[in-house]
């Protein structure tokens, strides 16, 4: 699957490793289960490590551990399954994770902006996706009523910028 990051196609630098496979050299992505059972060994590796969250696995399971990861993959098995949006927000805001969050699975054009707002910064997309579609999908809407993980100020706040500046003086 093509991968988009920072508004450009990019090579996937990580390989998925199944739970019963031996770990190869280099960047790997393991399941949450494998992370939890082999944590002691995994943190001694000196290559970047990624972990994959299924949609029924809460990001809370990574509390205290996020600094070990260069990548956290969130699976969207069906686009209708929106649990991953909460996972991304919890990772970014509550757990203060700053590495890459990648949306994988059924990741469609009309979800990209919401995902990005929740903190996703790389997207596994359908073959044939055009970069211009990606760019326009992220810019079609510019009014955000609520704060999320992307640090856009909410409309509630933007309306009162002047007041806030005054209050801060």
């Amino acid at each position, binding site marked *: 699957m093509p991968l988009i990051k920072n508004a450009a196609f990019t090579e996937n630098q990580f390989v998925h490793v199944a739970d019963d496979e031996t770990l190869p050299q280099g960047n790997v992505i393991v399941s949450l289960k494998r992370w939890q059972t082999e944590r002691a060994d995994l943190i001694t590796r000196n290559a970047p490590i990624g972990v994959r969250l299924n949609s029924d696995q809460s990001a809370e399971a990574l509390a205290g551990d996020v600094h070990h990861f260069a990548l956290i993959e969130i699976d969207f098995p069906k686009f209708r399954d929106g649990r991953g949006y909460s996972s991304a927000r919890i990772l970014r805001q509550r757990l203060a994770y700053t590495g890459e969050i990648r949306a994988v699975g059924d990741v469609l054009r009309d979800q990209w902006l919401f995902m990005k707002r929740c903190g996703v910064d790389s997207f596994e997309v359908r073959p044939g996706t055009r970069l211009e579609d990606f760019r326009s999908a992220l810019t*079609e809407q510019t009014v955000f009523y*609520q704060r999320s993980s992307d640090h856009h100020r909410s409309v509630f706040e933007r309306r009162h910028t002047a007041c806030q500046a005054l209050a801060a003086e």
Partner: protein
Amino acid sequence: MYRYDEFDQKAVDERVVQFSGQVARRLSGELTEDEFKPLRLMNGLYLQLHAYMLRVAIPYGTLSSKQLRMLAHIARKYDKDYAHFTTRQNLQYNWPRLADVPAILADLATVEMHAIQTSGNCIRNVTSDHFAGASADEVDDPRIWSEIIRQWSTFHPEFSYLPRKFKIAVTAAPKDRAAIKVHDIGIIIRRDAADVLAFDVYVGGGQGRTPLIGHMIGESIAAEDLLAYLEATMRVYNQYGRRDNIYKARIKILVHQIGADEMRRQVAVEFVEVKAQGALALPQVEIDRIAAYFASPAFETLSDENPTTANPAFNVWLENNVAKHKVPGYAIVTVSLKPIGGIPGDASAAQMDVVAGLAEKCSFDEVRVSHEQNLVLAHVRQRDLLTVWQQLAAAGLGTANYGLITDIIACPGLDYCDLANARSINIAQAISTRFANQDRQREIGELKLKISGCINACGHHHVGHIGILGVDKKGVEFYQITLGGSGDETASVGEILGPAFGEADVPDAIETLIDVYFAKRSPGERFLDTYRRVGIQPFREKLYAAH
């Protein structure tokens, strides 16, 4: 009422452009119907039995005359000259063409309207008390808070793919006219001992296949924390609501399965986390800004008068459809969309124009849509009541049946709806015709009769004093009757009487129930009161003995 600022307008305009692109991609075949479906559902566009149906949001049921005129214009230009007001305080067009929908949305945007989030598994249009701002019993205008919730929930990035649709209702009066306890989240605004606003949050109510009354999960939440509390509740639901079975995916099932106490605990934990982020705390300047739009209109200083005249028809209407206003000399008028034998909630373009004109001249330019599928002119001078009634009556809108047995709520049913098991409109028409006699209706008194064409309960049958549910038995329509439901502050779910009736037998069955009520009632009791006192047995015995 609320007016868009540049942000609100831009949000809606951008959406029109975006959806126009999506429709173009669908029409060109770039999107399959399967891929298009979630997109159109984010914009209120359903594919029904015979055609597309477009549901337009009327936030908390408040409209300006200009907006209502635009709704009439769209009905005329793009539809069959009428539209349908729903139990969600929304409006539905039954016959738009897909290719016209972008133009309809563009027209709506010119009057600060849209169809955003009127469908799909997202936070739907917020509903509220249709007497807001006019009734003496409210502690604040609930529309201020409904508007704040509307904005927060619009394009919410985290909560647009919930397990299931999500409905929020708000009331600020002890008399609950918004049925808040049968919503996913219902909010009651109170004033505490220090006269400060406090928000009680009820979670997990709902109708449909599993009717349940909401539990109070959040008590006395402070105004500035309201959104944080809602966000916390939504996050718990988004993560833990069931997604394996659409019939078990509403938040009520989650609350039912883990229990209200556990739900309260989980939300409380999340609430602490969300509050710690701080970003959702509502700035007081913003609350004030929105509140200013709902300031009372410039009422004249008048005193109450007795508007009765020598015209008995007017007097009956006055008694039934006119309620007390908080300001002396004014009145709240309910415009019945339930003419005898008509289709509940339908209004023609011409009728909408008449109501818009009256609102402009006689009600500070404001119209309300009630969840009971009527319209409301909230601020009419008592001395204008006669003129208002005359003009309404001339347009076929003068039916004096508010709250009576012919003021029936009915969903569109099998005449339109893809999910229906049976028709609802025919039953509403038959009962309405049977009980047409005005004196008899008044003799029966307040009676909420509600009809749904399937278990999804869009016609709110579970909370009808008499509820009727259409079922399908081997291709034949049957109707199951429930008694004793109520959607107000004493909310209860109706109890099933017994085996269902064929279409032709329903009016007789209702007659029998009314006979039992007459035989059993104590002075001053409404149907519901009698039912609650004597229970279902006498009704059951008489009904099934007779059949």
